[in-house]
């Protein structure tokens, strides 16, 4: 199986490669369109700020490629957010795979923004969540979130209940860092590889 991690300037994408190694998957990092198109599975990671991440994708025309991909694709953290149509983070137009808006957590609540740490996921559905128990804990680091919507396959409570994982056709997104979420994250990555 050929697994490609989309390579662009978006922070710590090596972590994802290490996590896949731990479950026995050798993934390659690439920004080459032909390589990405020929993959069986594509992982679209991301850490950092939305508009600079979009600019980095645009430099290699990856913003045109990604929405056309046919194989299972997993967006992680900012990767999931970029799959949406718009982010309030520096008012950024994103890829539009999901017709959703990424919003900033309300900083007027008494909760810290960003959310950093382990939170639980519930209302789980889709094969991506196969054998993941309800209320499993995953590791999150983010200030922006995707509100509840019809594509949600997991929900998490922070400031309000929000969509912590989404799915539409061959596109999947998880807000948490599956690559750092202990056994639960490994199960989700294995599920993705089995799609």
């Amino acid at each position: 199986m050929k697994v490609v991690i989309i390579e662009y300037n978006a922070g710590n994408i090596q972590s994802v490669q290490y996590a896949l190694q731990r479950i026995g998957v050798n993934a390659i990092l690439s920004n080459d369109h032909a390589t990405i198109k020929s993959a069986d599975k594509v992982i679209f990671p991301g850490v950092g700020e939305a508009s600079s991440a979009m600019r980095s994708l645009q430099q290699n025309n990856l913003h045109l490629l990604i929405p056309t991909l046919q194989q299972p694709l997993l967006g992680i953290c900012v990767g999931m957010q970029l799959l949406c149509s718009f982010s309030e983070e520096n008012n950024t137009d994103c890829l539009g795979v999901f017709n959703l808006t990424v919003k900033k957590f309300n900083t007027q609540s008494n909760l810290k923004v960003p959310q950093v740490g382990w939170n639980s996921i519930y209302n789980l559905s889709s094969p991506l969540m196969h054998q993941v128990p309800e209320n499993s804990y995953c590791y999150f680091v983010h200030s922006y979130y995707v509100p509840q919507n019809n594509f949600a396959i997991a929900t998490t409570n922070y400031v309000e209940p929000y969509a912590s994982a989404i799915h539409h056709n061959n596109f999947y997104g998880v807000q948490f860092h599956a690559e750092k979420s202990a056994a639960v994250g490994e199960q989700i990555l294995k599920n993705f590889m089995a799609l």
Partner: protein
Amino acid sequence: METKQIQPVSGLTKRIIPCLDIKDGRTVKGIHFEQIRDAGDPVELGAFYAEQGADELVFLDITATVEKRKTLKELANRIAAHINIPFTVGGGVSSVEDASVLLHNGADKVSINTAAFKNPNLITQLANEFGSQFVVLAIDIKQESDGNWYVYLNGGRTATNTLCTTWAKQAYELGAGEILLTSMNHDGAKQGFALDITRTLSTQLPIPVIASGGGGTMQHFEAVFKDAQADAALAASIFHFKEIAIPDLKQYLHKHNISVRL
């Protein structure tokens, strides 16, 4: 007009973080664990803690040799290959290049201390390059006879006349993602964490505060989460010397209505 009261919900848990001191690639002050073959191996010990339910790990390198950078890089690489929870590497990180090497070898965060105090711009450079979530600012503090908490450098050997609150606030504004706060008055005494200053920072700053120094009993952890509102608590020897087992600590906190990952 009627204003609607926001009732925020949160399932975010408090984090328990064992700290491993590393010298020449080996853990310092670890004792024998029946469950693992070599407690001197940071990767084996770290994996054991991860298995036990640690929420993150901190590896603090205290090697003073020129080989340091190479051993730290190799260490990060081995940890990343074996451990499935977030980990921070610290000890002598003083440039974007140092941090970049660690990131590319799998570290999720770096902790910086003296180098950031001497060159605060380093915080901004790291945050811009790798994101704030990558930057943990470690602050060693001591309460002097005037009642104020002051920043200390070089592993606590060098005093400054900068107040802890001043430096922490500046570091947040420069881009630090978390504060790792160690009270030298409390460190090693096992008489509890520095609750007042932890509460001050945790309630004044919008970023997480990791309390360190003084945790000796499970009640101390309860207090630092409940009274001082710390987001995470770090300890070393009580875990290494098996005075407190992480699963027991988490069960205790859970029973006392503190949200933890079980």
